[in-house]
Every structure is written in structure tokens, then in C-alpha cells.
């Protein structure tokens, strides 16, 4: 059986930040990532990030990933960090603290870490409508992977469902890839994402239909169109459905934290609507109720990648500190810095929802 000091599960913005931070204090780290390419959703983002300068505001997501890769490579070269791609964590065994993972489709491996940072990210939500299982109904993240990582044209005409930030950003990205957006549907009476993203799309002539939803996908074996339906404030239909032509229906109706391993580890969990699902209770240093497990990024509650990177730093720092890497002064100084950055990122009106959600799951320290 393999062993490691700190196992980071997930190689997105949170996981990579955790690995870099822990290694910088001298810890030995193994990163597991289920994808063929590291970087999680960051490598699929062509837009410039908001937030603070420390988290690379004004830099495109994929360029931020490159900055992380460069930092990571330094630690890989020194042998502090080992990265395994195409390696999916499949289970946590609470009897002995062993994590199992599968490399590719058939090589099963067991690893015994001393500490774990769960940075497993999120998965896409679905909404129910007839034919939502037909080929051509894709998650927004899947479309980003196809077009922004592999350069494959996803389709010709896309109907976007959801006008949150992901729906708006992916619509814009589709247009960058030369794909037509027939419209963006939003069930609520207002746009959920940042208006700057919405305005860019409106300027390009794409309709954003508020109080509209998809009532049915059309087609026998492939998507050939969709029926869209206007709805009132109580989500009841108004008038009759209209038919639109499209070959792709893109669902951008939200994400939910990926937390199966946290459940398996018996971490204390709570359903928090503002964080978009079940999340682990944690202390200020992102430690869960399990003394050897930390959580960071979307797995700890759906938020922006900027916050995920800082949470990763905090979790990596705390996990390394628990193994006596670094000095207490270093820990204190870095922790104060990262907490200040998080506070800044979550300040103001946009951070209100996150702050309310975090009140539900954060404790000062475990008793």
C-alpha cells in the first residue's frame, strides 16, 4: 500500500493551492485528479476574473491555471509534490483511513495518507423536463470542456437554460467559438449573474428571456428543438409554449458540492441552500469534524474560483501545520493574510449569500 503525508483529492484551483501551500512549508503531498488534465474548471475559463489582485483579478482563468502549474512544477521538481492525473478517488475507509482510487478504468490502488484535503469540486444540477436524457442536452461544464479544452465545436445552435454567471459566461464562450445562441432562459424575474456578463451578451443581440423555462426537449434520438414556456412569479405557465430550433440544450442551472467522500468519512454535514447543497461543518482553518480531514473550494460550498484558491491555501497550511511543518509564526502570519483575503472577496452585496451560508457551518474550533 502507498502512503503520503498529505493527500489532496482534486486538482482544481482549491486542490492545487492546497498542495502548493503545504509543500511550501515542507510537507510531502500527493494530488489525485480524476481528469486527464489538471486545473479543474480553471483551464476552461477564457474570461478575466474579478476579485482581488492577489487572486489574479484581471487575468483569464486559463492563465491563472498556468500560474498555479508553474508554482506546482517547482514543488514537483523538488519531489515534494506528486501529481496523479486520470486517478479517481473511489472510497474512504474509516476503519483504517485508507483511500482507494482507480487509475484509468481498471487499476485499483490503495493509499494511506496521514492527512487529507478534500477539494473534490462540484457537479452539475439537472432539471426535469421530458427528453432531458437525449443526446444534445449537455451540462455547461461539459460544453466548456469540449470547446475550450479540446477545441471541438459542440453544435450549431444552442439554447441556454439559466442566466446565472455560468449560463452567461458559457453563452459568451460559445459565441467566441463561433456557435449561435438562440436564447438564454431564466426562470426567475431577474438575471442571476453579474450584469457586466449579461450586458456583453445582450449587445451581441442574444435574447435573455426572464420568467421562461424549458418545458420539453424535442427530437426522437437527437435534439431537434425545444418548447419554451413563459412562467409567472409562482412558476405557473403563462400562455402556451413556443417552439425554438436548436441542436444543443445547455443546462446551466447550478452546481452542487461533491461530498461523497466526506459522507464516507462520517464528517458532520449540513444542508445549506446558500452553499448549494450538503457541505461539511468546518472550523476557521477548514478542518472538518474529522480531525485528519480538511475541505476546500466548491466541495465546501459553491463559490467563485478566487475564494476556492484561498480556501485551498488555508486547508493546505493547516494540514501541513498539523504535521509540524513550518513555524507557529509562519502559520499565524499566513493564516491572517489568507483570512483577510477571504474577507475581502466576500465583502459587500455579492458576498451576502455566501456569508449567510457560512454562518450555518463554521465553528471557531472543534471542542
Amino acid at each position: 500500500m502507498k502512503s503520503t503525508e498529505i493527500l489532496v483529492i482534486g486538482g482544481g484551483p482549491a486542490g492545487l493551492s492546497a498542495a502548493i501551500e503545504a509543500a511550501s512549508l515542507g510537507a510531502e503531498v500527493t494530488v489525485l485528479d480524476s481528469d486527464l488534465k489538471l486545473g479543474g474548471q480553471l483551464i476552461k475559463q477564457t474570461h478575466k476574473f474579478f476579485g482581488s489582485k492577489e487572486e489574479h483579478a484581471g487575468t483569464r482563468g486559463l492563465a491563472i491555471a498556468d500560474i498555479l502549474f508553474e508554482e506546482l512544477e517547482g514543488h514537483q521538481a523538488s519531489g515534494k509534490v506528486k501529481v496523479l492525473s486520470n486517478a479517481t478517488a473511489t472510497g474512504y475507509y474509516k476503519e483504517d483511513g485508507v483511500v482507494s482510487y482507480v487509475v484509468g478504468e481498471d487499476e485499483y490502488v490503495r493509499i494511506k495518507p496521514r492527512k487529507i484535503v478534500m477539494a473534490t469540486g462540484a457537479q452539475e444540477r439537472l432539471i426535469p423536463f421530458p427528453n432531458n436524457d437525449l443526446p444534445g442536452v449537455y451540462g455547461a461544464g461539459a460544453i466548456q470542456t469540449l470547446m475550450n479544452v479540446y477545441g471541438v465545436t459542440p453544435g450549431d445552435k444552442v439554447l441556454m437554460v439559466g442566466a446565472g454567471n455560468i449560463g452567461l459566461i458559457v453563452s459568451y464562450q460559445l459565441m467566441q467559438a463561433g456557435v449561435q445562441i438562440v436564447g438564454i432562459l431564466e426562470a426567475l424575474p431577474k438575471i442571476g449573474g453579474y450584469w457586466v456578463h449579461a450586458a456583453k451578451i445582450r449587445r451581441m443581440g442574444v435574447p435573455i428571456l426572464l420568467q421562461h423555462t424549458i418545458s420539453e426537449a424535442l427530437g426522437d434520438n437527437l435534439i431537434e428543438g425545444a418548447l419554451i414556456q413563459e412562467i409567472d412569479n409562482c412558476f405557473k405557465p403563462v400562455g402556451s409554449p413556443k417552439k425554438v430550433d436548436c441542436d444543443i440544450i445547455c443546462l446551466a442551472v447550478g452546481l452542487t458540492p461533491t461530498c461523497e467522500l466526506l459522507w464516507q468519512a462520517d464528517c458532520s454535514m449540513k444542508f445549506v441552500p446558500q452553499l448549494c447543497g450538503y457541505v461539511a461543518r468546518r472550523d476557521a482553518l477548514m478542518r472538518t469534524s474529522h480531525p485528519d480531514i480538511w475541505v476546500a473550494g466548491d466541495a465546501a460550498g459553491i463559490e467563485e474560483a478566487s475564494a476556492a484558491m484561498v480556501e485551498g491555501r488555508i486547508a493546505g497550511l493547516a494540514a501541513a501545520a498539523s504535521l509540524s511543518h513550518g513555524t507557529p509564526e509562519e502559520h499565524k502570519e499566513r493564516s491572517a493574510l489568507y483570512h483577510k483575503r477571504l474577507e475581502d472577496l466576500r465583502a459587500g452585496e455579492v458576498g451576502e449569500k455566501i456569508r449567510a451560508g457560512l454562518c450555518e457551518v463554521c465553528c471557531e474550533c472543534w471542542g
Partner: protein
Amino acid sequence: MKLIENHPILDFHHEDKKKITFSFDGRKMEGFAGEPIAAALHANGVRTYRITPEMKRPRGFFCAIGKCSSCFMTVNGVPNVRTCVTPLEEGMRVETQTGKGVVAAEG
């Protein structure tokens, strides 16, 4: 292949990638070595990857991160391969999976 050639921000360097051949349900196709099987199929216009066991519904690409089971196919005779996270190799035999798939008897 349906590839993005002109993009205001990204350059995919398709011309520098290693082009290989594989088969889909016996048809010869081209794709790039090391990229997901599902992405190569999509670029070749293939949308249906499997047929469900009970309702016999077509399923295709969906999550692209190995989580949803929608893109399970039979690859080199092995069923239930997550084609969105399995790299394409020269000469691979990729087949539409019907139902739960059949594991070839060991010789």
C-alpha cells in the same frame, strides 16, 4: 472533424497534435492521441454513445468529468468505459454499448 479553428483567445494547435485512427462501430475515424474518446467521437459527428438497458433510450455526452455514466461505451471489448475521461489510442475499437454491455469471455 468539427474543430474550432479560429478563436479570439484560444489556440488549440490542432495541427501539432498526433492524429491517429480508431474505429467506431466498425467505421474508421480520425482523432487525436491522448484526448478523450468522447471528444473525438463528437468531433466526428457521433452523438449517441449507448442505449439504456430498460427504456432503450439513446444516451450521449453529458458531464465530461467522469461522473454521470452517460457516455459509457464498449472499448476494445470492455463495457462501461467512461469515454469522457479515457484517452484515445491508435487502433482502438469503440462500440455503441447496448444495455449493461457484455464482458468478453476470458480465453
